[in-house]
């Protein structure tokens, strides 16, 4: 049988099966805003773990990590570095965010800012930063998905068509089942991703070199500088590694979708336990590096390093297996995209549109607007993914540098009473201006240091300075979660 037909049938089968799980996950709950966005705050350890893993391991994990190992070498280790450390950071932040969320029925990241700082201009700005930064991330998932289907079908299915079909499915199950649907599709995705990563990570070096160690020996002979920083790059050295790992570790949980995930938990200790065990799941990451490094020896000179993994899988294994990898990859794009859509839509409806344009809206109307926004955001990301491709990497870098600027507001919001809306807003604006300035003028890295890290330092400096000059006495965390606390800030939610 034609290998294209085999590979494509397997991919479509996996994608359709995953989407069906998503559609049927709505269970017997009425889908109000609370169920749709935070699953009624009843998720236990396993569902929270699945959701977190589902969101964290995106197409960047699958294609980007092997692509970086292929094209850049040792600097790819930054992925391994931040993958351990971001969970360490989450351990000290998410349980507290959850506690505040449970107390005041928070559903979004901007809700947190509204309750802690009490100023709509700040929470609306946070929502705006969140939505704007999510769009390039969503576009990354789309482009990755298009690449996967195009390679796996040997070019038989054009990218744009694949992206449209897959994202119609995603928007569909997000619309009907909300976050519960995403959690259940994650099960299939995680099993497939873990299984295929373990298998190809060990099998591909074995097929060509007889083992991982032998592959490294061959690589050390062929390209001795590739395996120590800065690898095959001119400027990604140790200063870059430290600043990038630190920035991403602090920024990662500032993606607004992780706040929503934290609220789904049944208790704060579930989030703590999750933070403890999550790094173990990253064992798939070095395996992706091994695949990328093997591809560098076997298939040198590929035009697009992001396709290194798929190309070597296609060369090594039969068509049906390419289909399994393609299906796993497609779900790896769809699950994070689903939750990004859900978060972006809720942020827009609840924290931007309602407070700014129509304060009288009821929760039911907000839910309706949010669901309509799922389709608007899908179309927006699709249009971007189909029309642009050159500025893609810098867009994502901008997204990361952008969400990183939310961190001081969260950290001081939890642990420093004197920080008020004014100082956090001043810091946010400074940080974003510095990040945009450095990245758009192509100064990333600047003097060997990650541009987002520099922006974050400026942000911290301004926030602290303004807080010290004009201190605001806030109720503080204990006051905000105390029993019987009456917080007028929450009234605006």
């Amino acid at each position: 049988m034609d290998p294209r037909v085999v590979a494509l049938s397997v991919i479509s089968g996996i994608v359709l099966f995953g989407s069906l799980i998503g559609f049927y996950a709505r269970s017997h709950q009425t889908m109000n805003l609370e169920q749709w966005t935070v699953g009624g705050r009843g998720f236990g350890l396993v569902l929270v773990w699945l959701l977190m893993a589902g969101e964290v391991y995106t197409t960047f994990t699958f294609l980007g990590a092997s692509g970086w190992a292929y094209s850049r070498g040792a600097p790819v280790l930054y992925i391994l570095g931040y993958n351990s450390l971001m969970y360490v950071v989450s351990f000290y932040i998410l349980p507290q965010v959850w506690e505040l969320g449970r107390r005041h029925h928070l559903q979004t990241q901007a809700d947190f800012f509204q309750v802690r700082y009490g100023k709509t201009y700040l929470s609306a700005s946070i929502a705006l930063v969140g939505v704007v930064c999510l769009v390039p991330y969503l576009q990354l998932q789309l482009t990755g998905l298009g690449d996967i289907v195009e390679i796996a079908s040997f070019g038989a299915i054009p990218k744009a068509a694949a992206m449209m079909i897959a994202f119609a499915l995603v928007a569909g199950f997000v619309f009907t089942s909300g976050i519960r649907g995403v959690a259940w599709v994650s099960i299939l995705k995680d099993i497939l991703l873990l299984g295929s990563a373990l298998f190809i990570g060990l099998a591909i070096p074995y097929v060509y070199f007889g083992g991982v160690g032998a592959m490294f020996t061959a690589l050390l002979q062929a390209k001795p500088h590739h395996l120590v920083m800065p690898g095959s790059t001119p400027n990604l050295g140790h200063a870059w590694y430290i600043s990038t790992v630190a920035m991403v570790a602090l920024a990662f949980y500032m993606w607004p979708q992780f706040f929503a995930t934290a609220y789904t938990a049944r208790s704060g200790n579930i989030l703590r336990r999750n933070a403890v065990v999550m790094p173990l799941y990253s064992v798939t990451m070095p395996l992706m590096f091994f695949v990328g490094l093997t591809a560098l020896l076997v298939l040198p000179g590929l035009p697009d390093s992001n396709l290194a993994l798929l190309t070597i899988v296609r060369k090594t294994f039969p068509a049906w297996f390419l289909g399994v990898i393609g299906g796993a990859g497609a779900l790896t794009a769809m699950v994070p995209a689903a939750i990004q859509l859900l978060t972006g839509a809720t942020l827009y409806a609840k924290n931007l549109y309602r407070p700014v344009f129509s304060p009288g809206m009821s929760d039911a109307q907000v839910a309706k607007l949010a669901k309509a926004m799922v389709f608007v955001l899908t179309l927006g990301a699709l249009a971007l993914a189909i029309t642009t491709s050159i500025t893609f990497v810098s867009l994502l870098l901008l997204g990361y540098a952008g969400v990183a600027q939310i961190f001081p507001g969260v950290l001081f919001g939890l642990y420093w009473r004197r920080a008020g809306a004014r100082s956090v807003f001043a810091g946010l604006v400074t940080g974003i201006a510095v990040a945009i300035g450095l990245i758009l003028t192509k100064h990333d890295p600047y003097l060997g240091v990650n541009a987002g890290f520099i922006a974050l330092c400026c942000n911290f400096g301004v926030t602290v300075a303004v807080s010290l000059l004009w201190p605001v006495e806030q109720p503080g965390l204990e006051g905000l979660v105390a029993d019987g606390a009456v917080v007028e800030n929450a009234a605006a939610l």
Partner: protein
Amino acid sequence: MRRPSLGAVAFGLIPFVAICFSVSLWDRVYPRILGIPFNFSWLISWLVLTPLCMWGAYRLEVRNNPDKETTKIGS
């Protein structure tokens, strides 16, 4: 709810030092472990050692934050 205790924060600083700030000490190829360059094997082993450190932090934090799962959700 309280702030994380100093001990719990100290446990979290260990992986930060080992993975992030000390990069120039371990970013080299030799000695290779099971054939894998030293820098790769160092970070791979911290995928396991980080959970060990955070398990220590967890033990400290759980003592201060008993589970409230059974408490009725706020007013």
